[in-house]
């Protein structure tokens, strides 16, 4: 009996590595600490009522960003471990198996649990405010999306200490990811964790598509929307149409692994190539899902701090539409070397190069917006300005990779790794940091410190170049991705040392940013006006942080840059007289999303270990929550006029 428990524990928990034991201890300590603090300060009720059950898009946005920052920390530690292992030849800091797990979790976490939720967080905060709405179209669904993402991410992260991590790369290619070559629970964690959070992503796409189409303030036609909102509209369309392919692919591979089907194994007539095909049919649009929103952020930030209206608004919009259409017909460029016929490679080579045209148009529009602007070098603006050259390098090398014959040389080398880090860091990461600093006052009512913000920016941006510029040359010198060590004497060592220095520098930049957040929470400059940056769009027309109902009166829009126009009218003394307040209709909080997602976690954990005694009750719990929700009729409330007056008076907006 004791022996069988012992052997179960040895298999259930990941054992044998001192770093894992350290992680076990720190996870246990952090959990005990959180529970103790919440209990000591009697915050459980507050946590439940204010956060866990909220349907307020602003709070959901903040929770997305907190979760994404934590995941960014974990993904960053993974990156530093890889860099430590590769600094010098023949190191044994990580063994091959552990290295495989680390690059798998690094990639999966950075794309699915950092980039996407961070963007979802920023769009939750900004989009309803920018279009003058009081919430998203489906607030309940919005909360459900967040909790599905959260529990999916937690399930994935659990693999680190329980059962073992996936090790087939973030693209999880068959046949290696299949049951025969990859027994154990690691790949199941990948499939189920990503699937659960993917359901949330799909729902978010639908939610924001409907919100933007249906909830805009009176007068705001599609072509008067702020550009960030436009980018989210287009992103939502891509999410809605790309994610189903991934959902299906993950489901098929889960059926392969859990129930012994052969969709992706040659043995019984399946096709491993079909996995790569389906994965990238989602995977390529996915990179635009994490890029187009930051294009939107940069458009807002560059226009705001150049104090000019955006150059070529309509062209910017049509460029994004063109990118969204093209993004669905380029996916094969991720596997040019799979052995496809020449016409196939030629078609996808050309369609890939075509994407450079609308993207280049956007770059020039940003430059022309800067032209003759009164540029103000704030922290968000620095991130936006650094994005232009750094991202362009990533874009140009992308065109190099798009040439199918040349790709046979670059494929899976560090040249490729450098390319996608140039686009995803200089694009997405710079963009989310830019948006974080830009909208921080709107989220919390105080500004992040500029000096520390600029230190973090310069250190991170320079270190990024120290890390990833030499990587292109390392790739051309023949080092391939995913190798866990290399022999001395190939001339790779100096470049690897430099890259590790850059990686550490990026970590330092991140720590300064984290310190800035803590410091500013205590000493940060309060934003009493609601408009700290002299903004141009409607989110700055309300107080910081915005009241629960966002706008006491729904703004009326007659032009682009609606808030700039309102301020202009006020300067001319044309401000309209205040109307009386009316009670505001708002959605009520509900605990169902978090409970339903927790059941989903239980069902998912059961599926990972193929413990159907656990998975089936979990799934029944999910269905029970759906049924319970169907019978909730009292899902809304009205904020009385007295409460609105009190809230508005507190922010000095009652006239």
């Amino acid at each position, binding site marked *: 009996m004791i022996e069988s428990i012992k052997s179960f524990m040895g298999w259930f928990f990941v054992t044998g590595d001192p770093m894992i034991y350290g992680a076990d201890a720190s996870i246990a300590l952090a959990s005990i600490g959180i529970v103790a603090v919440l209990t000591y300060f009697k915050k459980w009720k507050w946590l439940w009522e204010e956060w866990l059950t909220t349907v307020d898009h602003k709070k959901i946005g903040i929770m997305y960003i907190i979760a994404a920052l934590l995941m960014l920390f974990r993904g960053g530690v993974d990156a530093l471990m890889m860099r430590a292992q590769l600094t010098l030849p023949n190191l044994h800091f990580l063994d091959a198996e552990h290295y495989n797990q680390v690059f798998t979790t690094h990639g999966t976490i950075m794309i699915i649990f950092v980039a996407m939720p961070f963007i979802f967080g920023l769009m939750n905060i900004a989009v309803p405010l920018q279009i003058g709405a009081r919430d998203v179209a489906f607030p309940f669904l919005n909360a459900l999306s967040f909790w599905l993402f959260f529990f999916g991410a937690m399930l994935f992260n659990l693999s680190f200490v329980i059962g073992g991590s996936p090790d087939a790369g973030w693209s999880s290619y068959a046949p290696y990811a299949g049951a025969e070559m990859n027994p154990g629970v690691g790949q199941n964690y990948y499939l189920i964790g990503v699937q659960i959070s993917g359901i949330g992503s799909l729902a978010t796409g639908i939610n924001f598509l409907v919100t933007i189409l249906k909830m805009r303030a009176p007068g*705001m036609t599609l072509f008067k929307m702020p550009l960030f909102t436009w980018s989210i509209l287009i992103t939502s369309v891509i999410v809605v149409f790309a994610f189903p392919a991934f959902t299906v692919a993950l489901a098929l591979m889960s059926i392969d692994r859990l129930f012994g089907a052969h969709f992706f194994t040659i043995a019984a007539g399946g*096709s491993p*190539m079909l996995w790569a095909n389906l994965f990238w049919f989602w995977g390529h649009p996915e990179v635009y899902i994490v890029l187009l929103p930051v294009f939107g952020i940069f458009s807002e930030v560059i226009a705001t701090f150049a104090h000019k209206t955006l150059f070529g608004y309509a062209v910017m919009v049509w460029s994004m539409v063109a990118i969204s259409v093209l993004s*669905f017909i380029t996916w094969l460029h991720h596997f040019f070397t799979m052995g496809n016929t020449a016409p196939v490679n030629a078609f996808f080579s050309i369609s890939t190069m075509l994407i450079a045209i609308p993207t280049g148009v956007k770059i020039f529009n940003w430059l022309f917006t800067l032209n003759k602007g009164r540029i103000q070098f704030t922290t968000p603006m620095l991130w936006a300005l650094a994005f232009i050259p750094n991202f362009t390098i990533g874009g140009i090398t992308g065109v190099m990779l798009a040439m199918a014959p040349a790709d046979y040389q670059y494929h899976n080398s560090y040249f490729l790794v450098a390319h996608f880090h140039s686009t995803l860091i200089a694009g997405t990461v710079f963009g989310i940091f830019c948006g974080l600093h830009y909208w921080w006052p709107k989220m919390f009512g105080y500004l992040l410190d500029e000096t520390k913000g600029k230190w973090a920016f310069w250190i991170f941006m320079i270190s990024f170049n120290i890390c990833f510029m030499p990587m292109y040359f390392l790739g051309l010198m023949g080092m391939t991705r995913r190798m866990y060590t290399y022999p001395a004497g190939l001339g790779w060592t100096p470049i690897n040392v430099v890259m590790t220095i850059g990686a550490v520098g990026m970590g330092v930049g991140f720590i300064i940013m984290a310190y800035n957040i803590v410091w500013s929470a205590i000493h940060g400059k309060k934003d009493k006006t609601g408009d700290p940056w002299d903004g141009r769009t409607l989110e700055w027309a309300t107080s910081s942080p915005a009241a629960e109902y966002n706008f006491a009166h729904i703004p009326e829009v007659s032009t682009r840059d609606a808030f700039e126009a309102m301020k202009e009218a006020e300067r001319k003394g044309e401000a309209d007289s205040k109307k009386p307040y009316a009670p505001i*209709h708002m959605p009520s909080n509900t605990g169902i999303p978090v409970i339903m997602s927790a059941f989903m976690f239980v069902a998912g954990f059961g599926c990972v270990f193929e413990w159907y005694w656990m998975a089936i009750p979990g799934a029944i719990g999910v269905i029970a929550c759906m049924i319970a929700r169907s019978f909730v009729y009292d899902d809304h409330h009205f904020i009385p006029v007295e409460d609105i007056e009190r809230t508005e008076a507190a922010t000095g907006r009652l006239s």
Partner: protein
Amino acid sequence: MSENQSHTVKQQRYGFPWKQVIGLLLSLALTFLALWIAIGLALPVTATLTIIVGLAIFQAFIQLFLFMHVTEGTEPVHQLIGILFGIYVAFAVVAGTLWILAYAL
């Protein structure tokens, strides 16, 4: 746009959701019919595939008309663009996959 203002909250009472129930039953019937054709009948592969694809298209129309309110809504152009884009993506994935994997068949 104007929907923003139309947050009038009336506890509207709808009748019994016949449309949805019929849609659900038809969807279930079509799904099991497809399963039976694939497993229960020993038709040639092409015939099986043709019938299943036909049933799938029929089921897509059931989704569109009985669940997704394709005939309702204030801005039909949104519906049209959505459906056209959906057809484009479906064509891309099906035709593209067949073309890409043709060498391996």
